[in-house]
């Protein structure tokens, strides 16, 4: 058995690394948007309920499973699960714990590389004197690989490779390297976050301008926290809260198992788990809610926030807002914001590297250096399609299959495995072994009954959208190659009809009636208003529009003829790569099983 002697240098280091694993970009970008869209202040109620009924139990399960597997010298989920139960099959469920990390890091490291690039651009003053539209356009040209924003050819790829090299180098230093980064990165992240949050709280109406005379940061906070209690009756709000808790704690990934497997068998995991969970909650609810929404509302007004709040704000809007603070403070704020996102990203991407390193070391005796470089190489290979075909949707497709479906699937299985197959009697003993806090006995029953039911609900409620994704029902251009191009949905509901406004040799411009939200300050609620929106399609050589000005076009109607390579083609390539990756890791687990059999250390 390749019993590793590696362990955490200190308990604080372990907790900061675990919290760093959980704290990610979603804490700052996903949580406030979810809250705004799902009941405002009332969202915190389902959020807390899910935190206690799903988040904390899953942390207990993963920490104790990891430490249990670590006793047998196993540091990745295939053989951690194998050490928990009799049966040859379950190690293959554990494949998810390596697969998901490799697949996620492939695109996550790309986002991380954006933060590196944006720190650089904030420092050199690239965004100075740019309009809001130009800052948004800068991002689009950055991710358009062929276009260079700095004069560095293939800039996006250069930063991506730099970012992966940095991750690889730190991982090659083993657990101590990860711990050191967490000890530096987490306090800095919190410090930067507090600075920006204070700015968010004190901005008030000082950011109002001629263009946005009603801009007020307090409106943003007001809207974020005003409880709309009737939303609690909506199951979608509860599903959103469950999803948020699930993704924010980084459970279902295999990284918690891996980190916990290096905890000594008689050391506490119960207090460590809740501490890491609450630290993540602190960063999300206290800091995460006080940056993006109030600062954007303070300069652009609440109406803008309600219609545009989302992930893109981090890169397409925030640099513009910082410019309103003057050149020096803009550079400082830019470095802090993107530095904060970078630290939240790197502490997570390093965590994603450790299951692969642990597996290769345990099963094939690979050194940390060899494991780290192979991880970096794999992440680069898997990540390049997301870089080159970002605008064709490969990035989003990776995120959906690896970052959403795979996580929920694995978490659902592991909770069943822990509470019903490993058994709650043994499970409860594991959770409490060496515990520095008394875990309330009610958690024994929550873990056995409530958490599986909640996860099952999240899993089965997601099935219709999973099926839609498999069938490419989110587009009307479902063939990889086609001779006809069909109009996509004009609005999000898909009910709007477009009118052809302009037809060029290679372009069509539609107008259609859309709705947007408007904040009613007197009643403190969001209203809907109709407005005319536009959509433009541009085509390439050999693709010809077949519509005329004035035509009324429904989604799914043919609008152009010629030779088309649709986004589906690139997405299918991405999916094939993910399937190959899963099969490759499954094969490695099988090889490891045969090796263990030969060496007489197979468990069954």
């Amino acid at each position: 058995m390749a019993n590793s002697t590696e362990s955490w240098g200190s308990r604080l280091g372990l907790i900061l690394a675990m919290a760093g694993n959980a704290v990610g970009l979603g804490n700052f970008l996903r949580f406030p948007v979810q809250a705004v869209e799902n009941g405002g202040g009332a969202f915190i109620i389902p959020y807390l309920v899910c935190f206690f009924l799903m988040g904390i139990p899953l942390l207990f399960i993963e920490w104790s499973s990891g430490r249990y597997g670590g006793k047998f010298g196993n540091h990745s989920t295939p053989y951690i699960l194998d050490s928990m139960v009799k049966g040859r099959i379950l190690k293959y469920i554990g494949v998810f714990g390596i697969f998901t990390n490799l697949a996620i890091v492939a695109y996550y490291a790309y986002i991380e590389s954006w933060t590196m690039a944006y720190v650089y651009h904030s420092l050199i003053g690239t965004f100075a004197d740019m309009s809001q539209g130009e800052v948004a356009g800068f991002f689009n040209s950055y991710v358009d690989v062929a276009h260079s924003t700095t004069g560095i050819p293939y800039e996006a790829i250069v930063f991506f490779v730099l970012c992966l090299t940095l991750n690889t180098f730190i991982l090659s230093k083993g657990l101590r390297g990860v711990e050191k980064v967490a000890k530096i990165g987490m306090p800095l992240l919190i410090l930067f976050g507090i600075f920006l949050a204070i700015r968010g709280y004190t901005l008030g109406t000082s950011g109002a301008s001629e263009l946005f005379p009603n801009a007020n940061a307090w409106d943003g906070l007001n809207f974020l926290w005003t409880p709309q209690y009737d939303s609690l009756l909506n199951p979608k709000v509860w599903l959103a809260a469950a999803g948020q808790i699930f993704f924010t704690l980084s459970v279902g990934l295999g990284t918690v198992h891996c980190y916990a497997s290096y905890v000594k068998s008689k050391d506490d995991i119960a207090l460590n788990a809740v501490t890491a969970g609450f630290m993540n909650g602190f960063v999300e609810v206290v800091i995460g809610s006080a940056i993006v929404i109030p600062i954007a509302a303070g300069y652009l007004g609440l109406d803008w926030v309600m219609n545009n709040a989302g992930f893109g704000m981090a890169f397409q809007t925030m640099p513009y807002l910082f410019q309103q603070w003057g050149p020096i403070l803009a550079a400082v704020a830019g470095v802090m914001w993107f530095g904060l996102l970078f630290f939240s990203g790197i502490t997570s991407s390093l965590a994603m590297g450790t299951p692969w390193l642990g597996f290769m070391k345990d099963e094939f005796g690979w050194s940390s250096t060899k494991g780290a470089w192979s991880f970096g190489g794999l992440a680069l290979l898997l990540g390049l399609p997301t870089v080159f075909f970002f605008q064709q949707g490969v990035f989003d497709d990776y995120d959906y299959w690896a970052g959403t479906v795979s996580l929920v699937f694995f978490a659902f299985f592991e909770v069943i495995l822990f509470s019903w197959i490993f058994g709650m009697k043994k499970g409860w003993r594991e959770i409490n072994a060496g515990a520095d806090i008394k875990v309330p006995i009610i958690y024994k029953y929550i873990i056995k009954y409530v958490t599986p039911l909640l996860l099952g609900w999240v899993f089965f409620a997601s099935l219709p959208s999973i099926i839609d994704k498999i069938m490419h029902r989110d587009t009307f251009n479902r063939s990889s190659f086609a001779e006809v191009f069909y109009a996509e949905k004009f609005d999000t509901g898909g009910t709007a009809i477009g009118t052809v406004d302009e037809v060029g040799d290679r372009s069509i411009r539609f107008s259609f009636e859309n709705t947007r939200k408007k904040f009613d300050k007197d009643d403190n609620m969001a209203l809907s208003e109709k407005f005319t929106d536009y959509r433009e399609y541009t085509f390439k050589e050999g693709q010809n529009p077949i519509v005329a000005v004035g035509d009324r076009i429904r989604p799914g109607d043919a609008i152009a003829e010629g030779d088309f390579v649709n986004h589906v083609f690139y997405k299918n390539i991405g999916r094939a790569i993910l399937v190959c990756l899963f099969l490759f890791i499954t094969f490695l687990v099988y090889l490891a099983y045969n090796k263990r059999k030969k060496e007489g250390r197979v468990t069954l």
Partner: protein
Amino acid sequence: MNSSALTIMILAQGFFVFFAAYYLYKVLTIPPKPEPDTYSGNDDELERQND
């Protein structure tokens, strides 16, 4: 801010600040467990391996 928004914000943030600080304080102040005196006390119970 209206009073209900302010109340919810303070309660929610206060909750996470208090518990994050409380548990972190516990982590930092609880002394590490002493090493067992015997070699056998240091061994793990590998029940799954011996099944």
